[in-house]
């Protein structure tokens, strides 16, 4: 390594033998698959997603077929979860019923996440009056119990599937915005944003190209958390008679339709839709927890 004076210096060997020090790190995805809680949650979720997509094909009976001679039948080999007051197969209705809830909850959460992310980025990055104003609105929304707020809007606007999706999505927007905002504030301390300013980048680019990829993990966790809440909210609304209307199979609506006969001992008509709701929420929470832990480690 002898350089002639004045000539550009040869590259020091540091670079030529360089090896990337953290090459073989496990990807977050691999870390997730190593967690039993994630596997369990994912299996439950996948099961219900399959039912939602192909429910009618999998179900042993049509969820609408009434057998008026076989109403309120106990669970048996022919009807695993028994039949309801109209003689419909409860097992088939539970399987097919996953569709409406997953559709509405997922769409509403996606809507809330997209809007909340945009709002959170603007609040966190631009700060100032926008942040102050939106923060107060967020606090106001948070002060009212979620379900009451949803009820208020649904009663005012009518209880179509579209309205419920929009209402739940909009209610989630400020909640998600708040989470994204605080993640953005952490990023704002970092020099790469100063660096972007010194390149004369505009705010939109800084927010969506520079910051957004770095707050994605926080958004992902928030999305799964909200999905659980969305499922719960949508079920509660349909239990109150808002949302999916009979005879479309729906867990919440089916519980409402049948819990009147619960005192008569026909427990299977309400317990199985209720268990379905429970398993779905548990599945979502297991996945959420594992994602959170992997991202935290």
């Amino acid at each position: 390594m002898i350089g002639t004076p004045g000539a550009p210096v040869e590259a020091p060997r540091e670079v030529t033998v360089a090896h990337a020090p953290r090459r073989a790190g496990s990807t977050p995805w691999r870390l997730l698959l190593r967690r039993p809680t994630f596997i369990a949650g994912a299996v439950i979720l996948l099961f219900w997603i399959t039912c939602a997509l192909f429910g009618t094909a999998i179900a042993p009976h049509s969820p609408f077929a009434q057998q008026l001679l076989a109403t309120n039948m106990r669970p048996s080999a022919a009807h695993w979860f028994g039949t309801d007051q109209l003689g419909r197969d409860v097992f088939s209705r539970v399987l097919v019923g996953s569709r409406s809830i997953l559709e509405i909850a997922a769409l509403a959460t996606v809507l809330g996440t997209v809007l909340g992310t945009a709002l959170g980025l603007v609040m966190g990055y631009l700060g100032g009056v926008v942040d102050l104003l939106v923060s107060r609105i967020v606090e106001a929304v948070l002060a009212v119990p979620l379900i009451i707020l949803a009820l208020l809007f649904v009663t005012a606007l009518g209880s179509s599937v579209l309205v419920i999706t929009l209402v739940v999505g909009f209610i989630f927007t400020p909640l998600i915005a708040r989470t994204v905002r605080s993640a953005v504030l952490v990023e704002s301390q970092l020099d790469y944003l100063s660096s972007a300013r010194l390149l004369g980048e505009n705010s939109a680019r800084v927010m969506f190209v520079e910051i957004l990829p770095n707050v994605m993990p926080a958004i992902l966790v928030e999305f799964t958390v909200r999905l659980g809440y969305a499922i719960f909210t949508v079920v509660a609304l349909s239990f109150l008679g808002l949302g999916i209307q009979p005879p479309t199979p729906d867990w919440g609506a089916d519980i409402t339709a049948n819990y009147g006969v619960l005192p008569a001992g026909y427990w299977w008509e309400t317990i199985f839709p209720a268990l379905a709701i429970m398993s779905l929420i548990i599945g979502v929470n297991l996945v959420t927890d594992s994602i959170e832990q992997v991202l935290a480690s």
Partner: protein
Amino acid sequence: MTAADTTTAAGTGGGTGPAVTVEQMDVTYKVRGQDRLALRDISFQIGRNESYGLVGESGSGKSTVALALTRYLPRNGRVSAGSIRINGIDPLALGNTSLRELRARTVSMVYQEPGRALNPSIKVGRQIAEVYEIAGLDRKSALERSEAMLRKVQISDPGRVMERYPHQLSGGMAQRAVIAMALAAEPSLLILDEPTTALDVTVEAEVLDLVAALRDEFDTSVLFISHNLAVIAKMCDRVGVLYAGELIEEGVAREVFDQPRHPYTVGLLRCIPRRGQRKDNGRLDTIPGFLPPPGHSLTGCIFAARCPIAEERCRTAAPPAFAISPTRSSRCYLHEQTPDLPRNTPVNVELVSHRDAATAIVRVQGLSKTFDSRGEAVKALVGVDLSIERGETLGLVGESGSGKTTLARALLGLIAPDEGSIVELDSRPLEADARRRPREQLKALQIVFQNPDSALNRRHTVRRLISRPIARLAGLSGARLRERLADLVTSVRLEERHLALRPSQLSGGLKQRVAIARAFAGGPRIVVCDEPTSALDVSVQAAILNLLVDLQAKEQVTYLFISHDLGLVRYLSDRIAVLYLGRVMELGPAETVFAGPHHPYTEALLSAVPSLDGLHTERIRLSGEIPSAADPPSGCVFHTRCPRRLPTGICESTEPPLLEVAPGHLMSCHIPLDELRTLQDTGQAP
């Protein structure tokens, strides 16, 4: 291996037997079911009242040694071979009760971050008193002893400090409190793990003096761990150099640093500018390559891959520790050749200087910046007048809180200066906000930040990180962008294959190269370097400094170089500005400022820096810490700490103007230059 034992004869001091004996110790970490050797075959002794230093770069295993001694290794780590004796006791064989006893009475530790060593919810006094209570004292006398102990660590108002919570103490005060706590048990071994790394030089100097004084008073043995060779040279009787988990050289500190006998130690010492070395009289040497990965299974010498004189046998069989003298050992077959070790980087590179002292490229006048902190006006900069000349390197020094970074950020347009401040580029005013600056102005001023982890977007690839500024500032696209990218990558000595990687896949030095490439992408005229090497290891630092020097000559840029490391500033800078509480105290050609007579503050900074060359010029010490900028002292802001304050009272009442005391040399001090010259030559305070 037996040769290692010969070094143990050096244990100095009296008492019965050494305080610490470590013999052929291996430490293994289990990572994903696989054993990885973190330390191998470590043997050393610490005599009674001896101070033993462990130096090494990050990843060398320094802290692991301390953890192994106190049995604080993490759950997946264990001492897998060899033995440890502390005061004749084997900590590995102890049960829970006696281990607690050992940690409470025999060994104390002081870590890098004092804030994390103290419980934030308990008052400082109670925390120290707890140590005495464990030793059996009642609460009242424990508190009394704590107060006395705090006085010993030179806390001037111990009564008040005891009533405070840790967050109410400054870094230096908190570290003293931790040292007080560590010494309260009167341990026979005190382990200090980078105790001053988080502190300013002036505070560091005080804490080091304190440790040295207390060591004598308490008759304690010290294990001092640091990456800073000069600190070790100052503090330790003997030193061991760690590399990749092996003790590669050991001996009396002075001898090791003056005549290193292992190629790694030689290389490490050549990476640091010494004896007033400057960029014009030769470049720094570098150590090529990287530490072997943890848990490596190398058959030969661990340093062979980076060693310029490695032979065949170095690669096939690990060298034993050769005894060079009764007090020295080196794990190198070729230890006799080390004094003539060939350089990895040629010394003589002709630097084409584009300096033009006549032209001020940037001119700053009356630059002030006031921050609002909970209703209080914090004056970070007060009326700074400064010009940066074309092609020069202007060094900016001062303690933290002196306004260095604020000045740089104001120049860059990242913070808006106060009304009335003038910041000009080529005699034309610069927009205060970078977002409103036209491309020409953005192009002209760029920065290399201190921490590349923060400065590089971790989700973007290196290609994207470097391409974007080329597109934005140079306005290139397509084939011409790719051409410029290839050029830049070559000139910062990265490689094509790095382009596809993300920052987390690069080492610290490579990351900083990416950051430098970004700063140079648009063809800047001034590059601000804000502590660009403070997050890097010494060997990497040298390569980055060489790169900055080369780029300056090649791209004809001007540097504003900010650093707390006066050695680096001296090496790189043509002129130096010394800042204190947002005011320029002294400004002048680097050699003049360093040679003196200097401003008392500059003098204090220089005296505080530990030197590797054995010339300790500890003439004056600053007491206390930099006052709050919200409530600056009257008159000369430095008078509260100035060791040369005039008895006339003028320093307290009148702020001295920044006057030219010699051609190009400005100073803000009431003491006339000639008097300063006399004072600083004799070293007597007035």
